[in-house]
């Protein structure tokens, strides 16, 4: 594959697209597929054929359009968006292409949910067919790779990423450029690049959507990274629970190999790189980098002490770069538009955009991408559309089992790495769950502790035993039979587990408890002193 050939593919594809004035896009990402969008796609295809309009109107499946709660979503090339489309609506929808849109199915797009978003990672989601590499190439795909390989040195590529200020999107927020530069300077017989797609946080589905909607973007990011650090082989560690993402990744890998964008001497340069898929098997701890490496090596996913960091001694003892899906998805636009452009988005210490999976007790649930520094209030009330059923906002949870619950007084806080950490939560991978007064915060803390207890790998004692004991104490509180002493013990255990656990799972497991103790101490008090749960969740045994 030479740059000229790539340009030719893009031109051919764009011409083919220009020949068909009308396009109907159906979301075939996991959210809409679970409300039968495949049937809608099939019905539209059938109707289009029956009408003999096949040449004038192109029906295709595309990635996630974001507003998952209103699915199945369908969009047309003039920008009209339809929600809750059923297979029986196909005929009416196609007829409407000639005149006015179908009002009864219309989903307004001039609302904050769409207007407040800024799409970089998701720029192609919902616009291109994720199973066709030509569409990605026509949307400027693989240009960043070609540009890096032919016009930049590895050091310049890394410098551009450093300049962008991009930080790891997996949760911890380590500067990506710095990581790349460490791996590029490390010495080894072979270097590896790993994409962490083991999205284990309950309530988070950003990586899954990116992989399902625009898999080539992740491959391109990995290729650029491999060139920058001097790696020759890569792995994508993806959850086995994401069959659709795996299927589309496999297709994408095959297409890229066929075009010579993966393999030996890419773009006629000495750079060679191959990527293999590795399936996770359902262990939350494998999101931790050393545990992930152990799992790729075929072992139980248990972490090991760091240092040495994977950048020095990682997979098979060699220098290894591990980044999250969303981090890799940011690379191509950074190389295309320059690090300065990216650094101009966001706020002082957190640059660029972040994809969030907005869910829970909020009007609009789905996938959103917003610039860093947006406030929680804007997220919940503008983009999320507020709390349904006239209920009252109680808390927003970020960062999954490693994060915390933030109350109404934190709503005006900007969403960035430092502010969230300061408030006792974390950015995490991007799950954002809104809760109203029907949720009991002690019960929520118990839910997350149950998660950490089950997912603890058992290697180090503070995490293995500590999470069990904390869960037992929380269980006593939710059964309304705890004393003040139990809460004191709980606090002590939080401190111990946080400071002495081996890996991130244990170190962050107390966060949901600590944040609820800090902001919702009244609820704990209510359970202990008045034997009362304000949300009415606790104390009850399941009724008939």
């Amino acid at each position, binding site marked *: 594959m030479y740059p000229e050939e790539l340009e030719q593919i893009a031109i051919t594809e764009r011409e083919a697209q220009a020949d068909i004035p009308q396009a109907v896009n159906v979301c075939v990402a996991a959210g809409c597929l679970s409300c039968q969008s495949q049937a809608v796609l099939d019905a539209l295809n059938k109707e289009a054929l029956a009408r003999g309009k096949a040449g004038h109107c192109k029906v295709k499946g595309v990635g996630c359009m974001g507003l*998952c709660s209103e699915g199945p979503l369908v969009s047309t090339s003039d920008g009209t968006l339809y929600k809750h489309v059923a297979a029986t609506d196909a005929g009416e929808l196609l007829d409407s292409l000639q005149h006015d849109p179908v009002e009864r199915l219309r989903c307004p797009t001039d609302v904050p949910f769409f207007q407040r978003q800024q799409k970089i990672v998701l720029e192609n989601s919902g616009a291109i067919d994720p199973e066709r590499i030509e569409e990605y190439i026509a949307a400027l795909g693989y240009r960043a790779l070609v540009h890096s390989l032919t016009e930049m040195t590895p050091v310049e590529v890394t410098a551009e990423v450093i300049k962008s200020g991009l930080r790891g999107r997996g949760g911890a927020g380590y500067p990506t450029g710095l990581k790349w530069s460490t791996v590029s300077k490390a010495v080894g017989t072979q270097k590896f690049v790993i994409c962490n797609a083991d999205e284990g946080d*309950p309530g988070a589905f950003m990586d899954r959507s990116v992989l399902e909607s625009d898999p080539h973007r992740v491959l391109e990011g990995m290729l650029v990274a491999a060139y920058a650090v001097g790696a020759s082989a890569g792995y994508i560690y993806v959850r086995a629970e994401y069959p659709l993402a795996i299927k589309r990744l496999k297709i994408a890998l095959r297409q890229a190999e066929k075009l010579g964008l993966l393999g030996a001497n890419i773009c006629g340069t000495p750079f060679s790189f191959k990527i293999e898929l590795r399936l996770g*098997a359902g262990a939350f701890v494998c999101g931790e980098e050393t545990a992930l490496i152990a799992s790729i090596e075929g072992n139980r996913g248990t972490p090991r002490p760091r240092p040495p960091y994977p950048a020095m001694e990682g997979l098979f003892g060699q220098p290894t770069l591990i980044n999250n899906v969303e981090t890799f998805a940011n690379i191509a636009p950074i190389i295309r538009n320059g690090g300065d452009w990216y650094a101009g988005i966001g706020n002082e210490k957190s640059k660029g955009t972040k994809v969030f999976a907005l869910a829970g007790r909020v009007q609009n649930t789905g996938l959103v991408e917003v610039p860093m520094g947006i406030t929680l209030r804007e997220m919940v009330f503008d983009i999320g559309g507020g709390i349904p059923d006239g209920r009252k906002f109680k808390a927003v949870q970020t960062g999954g089992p490693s994060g915390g619950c933030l109350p109404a007084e934190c709503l005006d806080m900007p969403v960035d790495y430092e502010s969230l950490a300061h408030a006792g939560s974390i950015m995490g991978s991007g799950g954002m769950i809104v809760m109203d007064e029907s949720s009991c915060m002690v019960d929520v803390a118990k839910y997350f502790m149950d998660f950490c207890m089950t997912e603890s790998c058992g290697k180090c004692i503070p995490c293995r035993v500590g999470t069990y004991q904390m869960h037992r104490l929380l269980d006593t509180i939710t059964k309304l039979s705890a004393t003040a002493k139990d809460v004191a013990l709980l606090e002590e255990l939080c401190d111990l587990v946080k400071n002495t656990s081996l890996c991130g799972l244990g170190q962050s497991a107390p966060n949901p408890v600590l944040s609820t103790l800090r902001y919702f101490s009244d609820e704990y008090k209510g359970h202990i002193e008045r034997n009362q749960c304000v949300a009415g969740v606790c104390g009850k045994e399941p009724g008939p």
Partner: protein
Amino acid sequence: MSSRATVSAIKPVAPGHDKRWKIVDATMRRVGQNSRGLIETLHTVQEAFGYLDEIALRYVAVSLRVPLSRAYGVATFYHFFTLKPAGEHTCVICLGTACYIKGAPLLVDVAKRDLGVSPGETTADRKVSVLSARCLGSCGLAPAVVYDNEVAGKVTPDQLRQQLSQWDAHVS
């Protein structure tokens, strides 16, 4: 040393004439017949047979030259692997945060009361297996349940009860 050399020289024989062992053998060849391919191989076995039994674990362990304890350790460490065959129908209740907030615990109660099984168990007549999932990623449709690989969203306890009674005549 000599005894070890002999052991590795003998090619293990598949536990039966079932054609599915050929698929397993192919995976093991692809991963280079070594311990690095253990998880990949177990995935293939589970995909082919539905679960991992002792016969399969012994065969995979000896073929990839890992101790049986390690194969068993890996198989039990990861939630995705199961050592028991599933029932005729499966019902996976998502217990991700969004589903939990929106009432998934009530669905677990329905399964417990109507079928007498907790997540991870199968009814005595092997009709229905109830499982729980960490997160299906269908948070926009919370609470979500997967009935025999079909995702259903915004499931109410009554809907779940209805589906279960269709599968299992014993449900009252």
